């Protein structure tokens, strides 16, 4: 375990991020034009990367079952459409989701650690995590303590991730940085490295409860971090932008960014996920447009 001083020295020694330059680069990547065959492949890849998510206080078993049905068979009219990457729910609904997805090969991800604020004693966070894993979650999406991070208590953030990692057992750990609260790209870079050093399998932008959620530049900073982390350590960490990604056009921009910033190695659901809900229908709608040549409409896709 590093000391607080070592962590601080390391994180503050990372190269800075110039905001304007980063925004420019992200915007330029977003201007790539992906057409025809490349677009078709991108849409299917994006579908396979979707973490189909419902994280509402009003969620019920019925709602979760409907979502799982959609995950397994996104578009009844297009049986060749790939299935999604995972279904993401609160811990108390993991069991429902695991049941509903039995035999589909689709994993269940669960948010934990007093999502979304993370303002609970560590013991409660760990209990939350263990409960989700015990219920069958194969992926845990934890939140970091943004308060501790912004107060400079990097060691506390580090320790919580390490403990949660331990509580996960075999489940994959995604660490949510909640970049909308970290505000600066320098913080995003530092938090990314902090999470990776503490054992994250994935770093994730947002809870979806704070605006702004995922943005292209923030995701780019995180992609740079996983790329550089692999160069430095040999370990490959995944990235998951979540929240605010609603259209196929958006999703393709993210894939272009993965391709050109982290590299094609990351173009797999094992290393890149899109946390979204309404995105899926738009991907399916565009998919059908490419297949049939005519524009479709929302009435032709299921709302689950």
């Amino acid at each position, binding site marked *: 375990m590093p000391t607080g001083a070592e962590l601080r020295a390391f994180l503050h020694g990372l*190269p*800075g*991020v*110039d905001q*304007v*330059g*980063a925004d*420019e*680069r992200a915007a330029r990547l977003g*201007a*790539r*034009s*992906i*057409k*025809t*065959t*490349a*677009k078709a*492949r*991108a849409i299917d*890849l994006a579908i396979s990367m979707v973490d189909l998510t419902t994280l509402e206080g009003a969620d019920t078993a019925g709602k979760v079952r409907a979502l799982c049905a959609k995950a397994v068979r996104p578009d009844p009219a297009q049986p060749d459409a790939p299935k999604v990457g995972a279904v993401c729910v609160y811990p108390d609904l993991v069991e429902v989701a695991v049941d509903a997805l039995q035999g589909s090969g689709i994993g269940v991800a669960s948010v934990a650690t007093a999502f979304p604020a993370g303002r609970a004693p560590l013991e409660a966070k760990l209990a939350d995590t263990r409960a989700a894993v015990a219920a069958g979650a194969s992926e845990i999406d934890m939140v970091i303590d943004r308060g501790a991070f912004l107060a400079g208590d990097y060691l506390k953030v580090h320790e919580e991730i390490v403990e949660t990692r331990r509580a996960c057992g075999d489940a994959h750990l995604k660490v949510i940085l909640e970049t909308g609260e970290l505000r600066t790209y320098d913080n995003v870079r530092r938090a990314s490295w902090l999470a990776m050093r503490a054992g994250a399998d994935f770093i994730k932008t947002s809870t979806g409860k704070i605006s702004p959620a995922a943005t292209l530049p923030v995701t780019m900073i995180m992609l*740079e971090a996983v790329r550089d982390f692999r160069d430095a350590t040999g370990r490959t960490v995944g990235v998951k932008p979540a929240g605010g990604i609603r259209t196929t056009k958006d999703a393709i921009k993210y*894939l272009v960014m993965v*391709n*050109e910033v982290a590299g*094609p*190695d990351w*173009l*797999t659901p094992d290393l890149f996920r899109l946390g979204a809900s309404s995105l899926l229908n738009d991907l399916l709608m565009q998919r059908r447009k490419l297949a049939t040549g005519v524009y479709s409409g929302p009435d032709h896709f299921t709302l689950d």
Partner: protein
Amino acid sequence: MDEKLFEYAPAPESRSVVDIKPAYGLFIDGEWVDGSGEDRNKTIDPSNEEPLAEIAVATAEDVDRAVAAARRAHEKVWGPMPGRERAKYLYRIARIIQERSRELAVLESIDNGKPIRESRDVDVPLVAAHFFYYAGWADKLGHAGFGANPRSLGVAGQVIPWNFPLMMLAWKIAPALATGNTVVLKPAETTPLTALLFAEICQQAELPNGVVNIVTGAGGTGRLLVGHDGIDKVAFTGSTEVGKEIARAVAGTRKRLTLELGGKAANIVFDDAPLDQAVEGIVNAIFFNQGHVCCAGSRLLVQESVAGELLDRLKRRMATLRVGDPLDKNTDIGAINSGEQLAKIRELADSGEDEGAERWSPPCELPQRGFWFAPTVFTGVAQSHRIAREEIFGPVLSVLTFRTPDEAIEKANNTPYGLSAGVWTEKGSRILWAAERLRAGVVWANTFNKFDPASPFGGYKESGFGREGGRHGLEAYLDV
């Protein structure tokens, strides 16, 4: 995962928005006229060497007519016209450029070889912005700091290069017209088409006859224009060699002169730089517009303590550069503008190898036809190497290292040029320290190759004199 899975499909911009005529005459006194001589130039598409159009070569007689038309227009119409009316013509032109922006961008990319992404997102928007900016000055000249009622000079003879054909036209014509001058402009012989389309825009704007005259041709026509007794002002953008020739040609006359010439800019990266943005900045500095940029950051000066890491990142980034069809929306590096320029780039790159520098390019397939040069970086370059001293004007970066800030500045300034420079560091006081010491007209700190009509541009030393853009850009066209 299959590496090719995400290979981008071609995404070509449509050529159908442009209508290139088989042959063009000269635009004099508001009309298209045939050149008086027999000579014609062919302009070609540098990406495939297909001929695009035949272009008249203006003779002494043609230049006479153009200058006379400009003189008449200055005396009778444009000079006496109230500034607010001149302003409205310029606003009209700016609007028509916006309306026809796609057409201009495609035509520019076809004639020049530059990527459509740049002509569409950089060149043409800046052209419209430049006219918009100077339009606003036309009726406010008394407030510009050059006296209460500054007068125009008269007729301006303007000669522009092939690297930013339409943008250089805008940089020349917009301030000249705003200040009440009339112009005779000669575009470069390899890239005349957007200037000729601009003539059509002048007609659409109902700009009075003779205010803008476009004469095409090569160096000979340029010499006739700058040497003409009937002009009051010469403005030239191009090579330092030709700039000196022009300075000699106007010696002893009353002609006013501004020159925007070559450069060999140092792009200095300190070890505390924001590295990812520095890599982008380096790429943008040298590979923007195939490196056909007078202010290109062609000398990378990197602090030794970070050189290895930076170069690794740079090379990885260069491997994602897409070289090819200028009209493909995903192309980052287009065609070299001419066979002549390609030969020059090759010759200098070869000299780099001969002198012992290490050459590297990412693997990239270049098209069979047309003029192409892969993005190239030379490491282990010494100040004495030709590739560290001479302007290559192509996608070729020379990397040198330094140990201390003083050494960086000393090396950066160790050139007869002085157009631009770059500084990358997170330390504010070091930026200002370096900016103060760099003998260059534009210093980009933590950015590079940024242009704006409100921002003066121009060089120190042998990179020329006078400024284009901003309030300063008015001075070159006023009798102050």
